[in-house]
């Protein structure tokens, strides 16, 4: 077993375990900070998928931006948010959660079935790329290529997303403004 494979299993174990902890814990603050660990380990997985630029972006935007934003909203919404959580009974297996758990598990079964059926490593185009020896290699410099592609081939989606970001910015500012001043 190579070192990359070992790292992959460690990272994916951290991702899955912390995601399950996020989903199962009663304490909102703990779940937010565990989500932090999930995001970091996911950045590690992106590095192992040879997408280092995406990994850096994940850390900068998700960990630096979104998580701080979530914490901020949590602080602003006061202790009422915690009271809602504490009202739930602290039984080990909560029967009211059973349909949700069942839904998640069944959906997981369906997805595993699909993944096994398509057999992604033997897809035609993936095989072609591997045979022509054209996949990304660990010592390739991809950031240059990403920049050029972003400004040429993917210019239209890039512009669309910038318009959407502007709309979201204005919308969020409009929603969060003080009432009365209109």
């Amino acid at each position, binding site marked *: 077993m190579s070192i*990359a*494979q070992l790292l*992959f299993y460690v990272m994916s174990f951290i*991702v*899955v375990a912390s*995601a*399950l902890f*996020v*989903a199962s814990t009663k304490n*909102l603050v703990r779940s*937010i900070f565990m*989500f932090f660990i999930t*995001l970091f380990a*996911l950045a590690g997985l*992106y590095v192992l998928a040879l997408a280092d630029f*995406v990994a850096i*972006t*994940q850390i900068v*935007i*998700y960990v630096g931006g*979104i998580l701080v*934003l*979530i914490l901020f*909203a*949590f602080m*602003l*919404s*006061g202790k009422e*948010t915690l009271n*809602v*959580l504490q009202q739930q009974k602290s039984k080990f297996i909560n029967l009211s959660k059973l349909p*949700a*758990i069942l*839904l998640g598990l069944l959906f*997981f079964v369906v*997805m595993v079935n699909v*993944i*096994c059926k398509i057999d*992604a490593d033997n897809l035609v*185009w*993936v095989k072609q790329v*591997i045979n022509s020896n*054209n*996949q*990304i290699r660990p010592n*390739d410099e*991809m950031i240059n*290529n990403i920049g050029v*592609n*972003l400004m040429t081939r*993917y210019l239209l*989606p890039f512009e669309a*997303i910038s318009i*959407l*970001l502007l709309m*979201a*910015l204005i919308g*969020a500012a409009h*929603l*969060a403004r003080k009432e009365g001043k209109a």
Partner: protein
Amino acid sequence: MITLTDFLMVGAVLFCTGLYMIVSKHNAIQILIGIELMLNAAILNLVAFGRYDKLNNGGQIFALFAIVLAAATTAVALAIILNVYKKYKTIDPRRINNLKD
């Protein structure tokens, strides 16, 4: 060699965890975290397939777009959550059952 199927499996687990959170949680912030988990599962799949697209970098670039979209979603959703909290003094989605007028 890490196979594509490994990545897809991790993505499937993450997606189902997110789905469970969305369905079962009584707190809008936790539902938002569930949505983020599902988005991250999708991004993981994009990145895993993007490895085999060296010339065009489709997977990685759309992963970047998805991250930006997630940021925009979160900003708007949190603004909405704060407004809902101001009006109802709770962010439990089950107890928000009135429209504005």
